[in-house]
């Protein structure tokens, strides 16, 4: 868990009634519909939602790239509109799209960043060494970045986001397009940050399994935050475990489940399936009360995919188009 502080700390991110509208022809599109959000310092916060949900627009307002239409947002204690510079010095950003200078070496990229953020020479030297070490790129520091693999570039970008020791690190889809091993490696770094530092990590993702690494998650849809809680609480809120059975007599099993457990069961993918609150507690009763030969039992806990489905009415992969540009720099305006 995150480092615990004795003093009451200001939240890392505090958003009130944040709203963003765009003109679209004669009408107005409301991309973000007055959201409230509070992220405590030191947390790893997952921000989920399909493209077009307003997630990228929200992150851009928090990072001072776009001004809100109305409402306020404070990041690291400063107002994102009136105290833009102070906010910028205290946040690190890792974008969905790669933003390294491929012609420069890893170290040159980091040094450029350190200097832009006003670090002194000794500070820059120290921080560059630290972050390179953290992402295990020390031995590649003089190599040109265009020789790096996708995963290495991503790690370098995370390192760069940390060079100026930000209080809040924003990552927009940091693992998109990476293979499973690299995704896991990236999350190892983020988990290390969560466990060993006070930094607040605000991360958007559409991989539901990654949201499990977060202290809290919010799901955004149609410009609104539809639900916000810990991953565990959200999974409990969608309720039920699912039990799937292979039996010698499915018809009879379904009838007995209905009769003796008072639960509706049905056939699904060749198995008798039923939904119950506490799956593990029901399994022994199946063996004693069904009187039907049972060949296998599977109990599935609800996943964040189920949470997403419940709150948005669709699976996240249905709504996430293949590599649609959610990034303002990805396409022309």
């Amino acid at each position, binding site marked *: 868990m995150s*480092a615990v502080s004795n003093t009451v700390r200001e939240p890392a991110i505090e958003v009130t009634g944040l709203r963003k509208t765009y003109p679209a022809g004669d009408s107005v599109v409301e991309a973000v519909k007055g959201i409230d959000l509070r992220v405590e310092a030191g947390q790893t916060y997952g921000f989920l939602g399909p493209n077009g949900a307003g997630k990228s627009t929200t992150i851009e307002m928090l*990072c*001072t*790239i776009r001004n809100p239409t109305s409402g306020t947002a404070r990041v690291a204690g400063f107002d994102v509109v009136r105290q833009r*510079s102070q906010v*910028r*010095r*205290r946040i690190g*950003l890792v*974008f969905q*799209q*790669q*933003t*390294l*200078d*491929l*012609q*420069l070496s890893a170290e*040159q990229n980091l040094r*450029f*960043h350190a*200097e*832009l*953020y*006003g*670090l*002194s020479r000794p*500070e820059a030297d*120290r*921080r560059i060494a*630290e972050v390179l070490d*953290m992402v295990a790129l020390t031995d590649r520091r003089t190599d*040109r970045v265009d020789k790096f693999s996708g995963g290495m570039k991503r790690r370098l970008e995370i390192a*760069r986001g*940390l060079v*100026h*020791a*930000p*209080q809040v690190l924003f990552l927009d889809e940091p693992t998109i397009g990476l293979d499973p091993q690299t995704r896991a490696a990236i999350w190892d770094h983020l988990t290390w*940050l969560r466990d*060993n*530092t*006070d*930094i607040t990590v605000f991360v958007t993702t559409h991989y539901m399994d990654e949201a499990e690494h977060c202290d809290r998650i919010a799901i955004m849809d149609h410009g609104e935050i539809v639900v916000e809680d810990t991953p565990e609480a959200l999974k409990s809120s969608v309720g039920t475990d699912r039990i799937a059975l292979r039996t010698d007599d499915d018809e009879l099993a379904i009838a007995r489940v209905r009769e003796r457990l008072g639960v509706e069961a049905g056939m699904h993918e060749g198995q008798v399936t039923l939904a119950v609150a506490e799956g593990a507690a029901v399994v022994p009763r199946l063996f004693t009360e069904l009187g039907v030969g049972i060949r296998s039992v599977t109990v599935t806990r609800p996943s964040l995919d189920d949470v997403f489905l419940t709150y948005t009415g669709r699976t996240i992969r249905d709504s996430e188009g293949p590599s649609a540009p959610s990034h303002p*720099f990805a396409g*022309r305006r």
Partner: protein
Amino acid sequence: MSTRDTAVPPAVTEPQRLTEVRSDLGHEVRATWVVMRRELLRLRQDRARILTMLLQPLLFVFVMGTGLGSIVDTGGDTSFRTFLFPGVLATSVLFTAAFAGISLVWDREFGFLREMMVAPISRGAIIWGKCLGGAVVATVQSLLLLALAGTVGIPYAPVLLLQLTGCLFLGSLLLTALGVLLSTRIRTIQTAMPVSQLLIMPMMFLSGALFPIAGLPDWLAVLTKLNPLTYVVQPMRSFVLDRLALTAAEQERLVPVITWAGWEVPVGVQLLAVAVLTLGLVTLAARVFRTTE
């Protein structure tokens, strides 16, 4: 307090320890310097580009200059190559500087622009850094050509070399600023390249870099006077020719004289005009950049 406090936090957890930088002019100047230095780093990484950029001016001076030299009467012993040299020197920065300017389109396309846009620096610092960096890169590359001045009989006088370098920098900044200004509106490399070529070629030919501007027909004389590059090329040529012992006929044919409504414009005024225009272009680019990005 004892020094044996528990739980020394790792260094990453101490953001407050880093120096706070104020949003003052000093930081903006420093940011401009950082953006500018990146252009130089990139040049060092790309040595092949330096050599290829040198090829075209060499062809102009030594191949075209020698070839045409036999039929061009300079009015004395001064070789056509000597006359051509300062003009070609000036045009050698055209492409490098303009391309350095439109590299902003690459920065945008490859994402690096975003890294600069979210940093705690002003957009003006980004534009000034790009312009100055591109101008320095183009100037440095043209110095390789300047080093060959002796081969066409131009003396290596320190003052002359400084004058020429200064003009080259001014011309480079003008072209880089034009390139950057284009990049604020043009979003793709496929468009930026031909548009910049479309701009460069007429500027090169209408500057009198490759021919004397004395006795041009009216229509061509007017176009030459409207071309800002003329006011870089002609002072450079004056500086060079002033160093040589010319015959009266050579003076008349080769030494450029520019008049505005009958007034003979001094070299200093010519360069000042370019400087003012350049400053205006950079300022305009910064303003457009602030409103569009």
